[in-house]
């Protein structure tokens, strides 16, 4: 049983080490990458089904008992995130087969990508705060090298900002973890959920909560901590941009959701109000930034920020419906956003440029690509019946239910401006004729030649349509995770054992020798 829960970490790790060992055989690395990604997808779906059928799954690594060792926990949210990671991982690796040149492959692209998946899955599944820090560093180190791999000048510049701001966030996270340990004497998240409410100095808890908010906020890219994102995400190859855009900021969002539903719910009036302001401003600044850009990847990078705002809005409203919206939004967003980057890469292949000014004539030359762009673009803007419509609808309703009209108004405006951005790309790259200064004439879809690029796009577009048309099972999963998030009893008891949830009992039950 325990192996199924650990397999999302073990498979990419095993794949990464084998691929690293054969670094001078790039073909072999590609094979290992694809095989690991397929296996990862299969096991992660099995894990999600298992969690859905049997409830929260827990493994105590190395057989150390709960608050002392490191627990790995798979609840609905974690399992959903792991499945999404596997989907994006598979799509990215297939896309990379064509997109990543030989030199980058030679310098360890596939092992690094697998290491990234390893770190991301670890961050989703761990039930220990310090271990979470370690996973963050694993995925950061892999992402640093991936971003700078190839070493072009824009990449080096982008990596510089990405690395330094993220390291700052990590250090802040470390300090916040240290202070949490000082207050409670434990770092196991389930144990913390029991002990944090008992800390007498509640002001200190709120201060530490704010530190976590800033540290995770930098990683998630919320207002005003997102400056590193538009400075770096457009510099690496498209495949790397896509997996970063799809996954990495969402790890930050996931940890924010985990921290502010399980751990820091003592002063909801303060922390979640702060989150709500951040959410609204994140949406607005992100979408306005996108409106000012005329390079496809930079438009999309700014849109990541505005979309993060929606997820944070769901967390900040902190009602069952809002959390359902947040989880559903993440599901939809990861797939759509990575897909848009993939489409952007194909646009570059066909027209020779990412600049909207220099592209054009794609609608006529490649109706296939036009359709493949419209699906994720309209989904991002929230058009029914595509996947983006449902989470936005749920979030609006959740906002109206608690009468936060301001945030709903902001979210609506953001939606309209998103449509504006997407139509901008549509009008410039697809609708308009081939411009004077075009880098190269567009000759059809070149499907046969670029099939490794088209296949992932079709795969993800298919998922977008399925989520949109057949939303019920996805909604049920989101509801199940929201229910688990709001009532931490199940989480705590499956990690620490029956009866652990009673705060008073828990304190006398496992005295750790550190007086608060």
């Amino acid at each position: 049983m325990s192996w199924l829960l650990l397999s999302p970490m073990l498979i990419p790790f095993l794949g990464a080490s084998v691929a690293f060992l054969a670094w001078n055989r790039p073909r072999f690395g590609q094979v290992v990458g694809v095989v690991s990604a397929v296996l990862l997808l299969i096991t992660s779906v099995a894990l999600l089904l298992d969690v859905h059928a049997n409830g929260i799954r827990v493994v105590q690594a190395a057989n150390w008992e709960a608050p002392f060792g490191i627990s790995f926990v798979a609840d609905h949210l974690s399992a959903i995130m792991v499945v999404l990671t596997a989907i994006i991982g598979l799509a990215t690796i297939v896309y990379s087969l064509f997109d990543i040149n030989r030199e980058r492959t030679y310098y360890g692209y596939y092992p690094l990508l697998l290491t990234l998946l390893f770190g991301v899955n670890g961050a989703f599944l761990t039930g220990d705060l310090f271990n979470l820090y370690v996973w963050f560093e694993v995925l950061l180190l892999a992402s640093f090298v991936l971003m700078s791999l190839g070493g072009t000048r824009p990449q080096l510049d982008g990596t510089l900002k990405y690395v330094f701001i993220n390291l700052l966030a990590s250090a802040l996270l470390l300090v916040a973890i240290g202070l949490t340990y000082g207050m409670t004497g434990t770092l196991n998240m389930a144990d913390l959920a029991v002990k944090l409410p008992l800390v007498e100095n509640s002001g200190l808890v709120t201060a530490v909560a704010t530190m976590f908010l800033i540290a995770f906020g930098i990683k998630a890219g919320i207002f005003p901590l997102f400056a590193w994102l538009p400075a770096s995400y457009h510099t690496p190859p498209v495949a790397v941009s896509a997996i970063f855009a799809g996954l990495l900021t969402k790890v930050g969002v996931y940890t924010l959701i985990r921290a502010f539903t399980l751990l820091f719910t003592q002063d909801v009036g303060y922390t979640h109000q702060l989150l709500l302001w951040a959410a609204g401003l994140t949406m607005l600044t992100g979408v306005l930034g996108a409106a000012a850009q005329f390079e496809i990847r930079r438009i999309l990078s700014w849109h990541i920020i505005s979309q993060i705002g929606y997820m944070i809005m769901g967390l900040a409203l902190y009602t069952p419906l809002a959390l359902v919206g947040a989880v559903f939004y993440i599901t939809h967003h990861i797939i759509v956003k990575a897909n848009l980057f993939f489409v952007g890469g194909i646009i570059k292949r066909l027209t020779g440029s990412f600049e909207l000014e220099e592209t054009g004539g794609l609608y006529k030359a490649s109706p296939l690509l036009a359709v493949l762009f419209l699906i994720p673009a309209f989904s991002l803007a929230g058009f029914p019946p595509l996947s983006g419509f449902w989470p936005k609808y749920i979030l609006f309703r959740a906002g109206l239910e608690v009468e936060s009209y301001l945030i709903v108004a902001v979210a609506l405006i953001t939606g309209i401006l998103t449509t504006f951005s997407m139509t901008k790309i549509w009008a410039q790259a697809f609708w308009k004729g081939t411009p004077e200064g075009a880098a190269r004439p567009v000759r059809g879809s070149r499907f046969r030649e670029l099939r490794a690029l088209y296949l992932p796009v079709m795969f993800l577009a298919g998922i977008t349509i399925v989520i949109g048309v057949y939303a019920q099972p996805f909604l049920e999963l989101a509801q199940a995770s929201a229910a688990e998030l709001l009532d931490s009893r199940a989480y705590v008891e499956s990690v620490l054992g029956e009866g652990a949830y009673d705060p008073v009992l828990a304190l006398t039950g496992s005295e750790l020798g550190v007086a608060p």
Partner: protein
Amino acid sequence: MEWILAIVSGFIFACTLYLMLSRNLLRFVFGLSLLTNAGNLVIFTAGRVTRAAPPLIEEGATTAAATTANPLPQALILTAIVIGFGLLVFSIVLAYRNFEEMNTMDPDSIRVAEPLDETDKDAGDVRIEGAEVRT
């Protein structure tokens, strides 16, 4: 005892911020290495500084005989040091490669990824002649 360590770590944080804000990549890297250490000191202090026996259990016994010091912060710090070391190595290499390519250590003048206007795309090249390294 704790208050001394608290002041020391606060002082290191101040140094870190000073180094990081002084617009030089190398100083920023130094700041980063200090920052991790300040964080480690916070964990160490948060684990309470006590005079107690080392947390070792005698052979044959199942529990420790005397009150022991808290072993966990050391384990945490050790992990953090290892991670900090790896990240430091990477950031030094990165800063060095950036210097090689752009010929400047001033992060504000590196605008290749986000050019303000067309001329900025080549800003790094222009700077090669008057390569200035602020020390």
